[in-house]
């Protein structure tokens, strides 16, 4: 693994995951009551529809592709990527989720 892959994967995965949750871009849907998977975002059938697995799958694919491209970057460009971006973006996303879900706690 290279520094470029580690940094780009971490940042892109977090941003993509946040976007997937917000826009509901799930690669697939799981219907737990039926034990069925379906491609893309599907409405609930019998019981709830679960998108969490699909959000992680979408984010994972996007991050692997971006990280793979980062491996091809010249060393001079990789040296300009700041490792702090990984934890700063993650921390920002966690705070953003707290804000988005505040309705559960403030009523």
């Amino acid at each position, binding site marked *: *693994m290279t*520094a470029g*892959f*580690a*940094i780009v*994967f*971490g940042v892109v*995965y*977090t941003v993509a*995951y946040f976007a997937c*949750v917000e826009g509901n871009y799930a690669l697939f849907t*799981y219907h*737990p*009551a039926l034990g069925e998977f379906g491609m893309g975002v599907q409405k609930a059938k019998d*019981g*709830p529809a*679960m998108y*969490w*697995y699909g*959000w*992680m799958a979408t*984010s994972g694919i996007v*991050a692997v592709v971006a*990280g793979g491209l980062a491996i091809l970057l010249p060393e001079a460009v990789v040296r300009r990527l700041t*490792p*702090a971006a*990984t*934890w700063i973006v*993650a*921390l920002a*996303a*966690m705070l953003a*989720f*707290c804000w988005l*879900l505040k*309705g*559960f*706690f403030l*009523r």
Partner: protein
Amino acid sequence: MNGWTILLIVHGLVAVALLGAITHQALGVWVPVRRPAGNFVARFRAVPGAGYANAIVVLYLLAAVLGAVIYAEYRISVRTVLQQLEMRSAEGAFELKEHFAAIGLGLLPAYWYYWRAPASDHARTRAMLTSILAFAVWFSFLVGHVVNNIRGFGV
């Protein structure tokens, strides 16, 4: 005892091991022991953090996979009860747990990479990544424990 409860117990045991490892490591990076450790707390902080990184990655992945498996049953038999009882805080805390756990998964490659770097390099990045993972693990563990107390999978 039903299969979901057995999986939940295994998930909890893996989480306990992960908690211990990541707490050792987080304390080791923030308050390292510079003299030979004397008491229990100092010994707890005195562990070589780099030696824990591989185990933490494996335990995190294992806990995440087990959590993902039992999450489906949670959605059917636990979350609906929380909604019926209007326990909004518990439901919201579990939503946060799923997002924090997912974000932690995305940090694992960087976490692993920077723990393999020489100890003198990227100390701040290592400390922050470890702290975020430690927070996600502690939060997930406590929320899971409380929600299981409210409504478990049964026996």
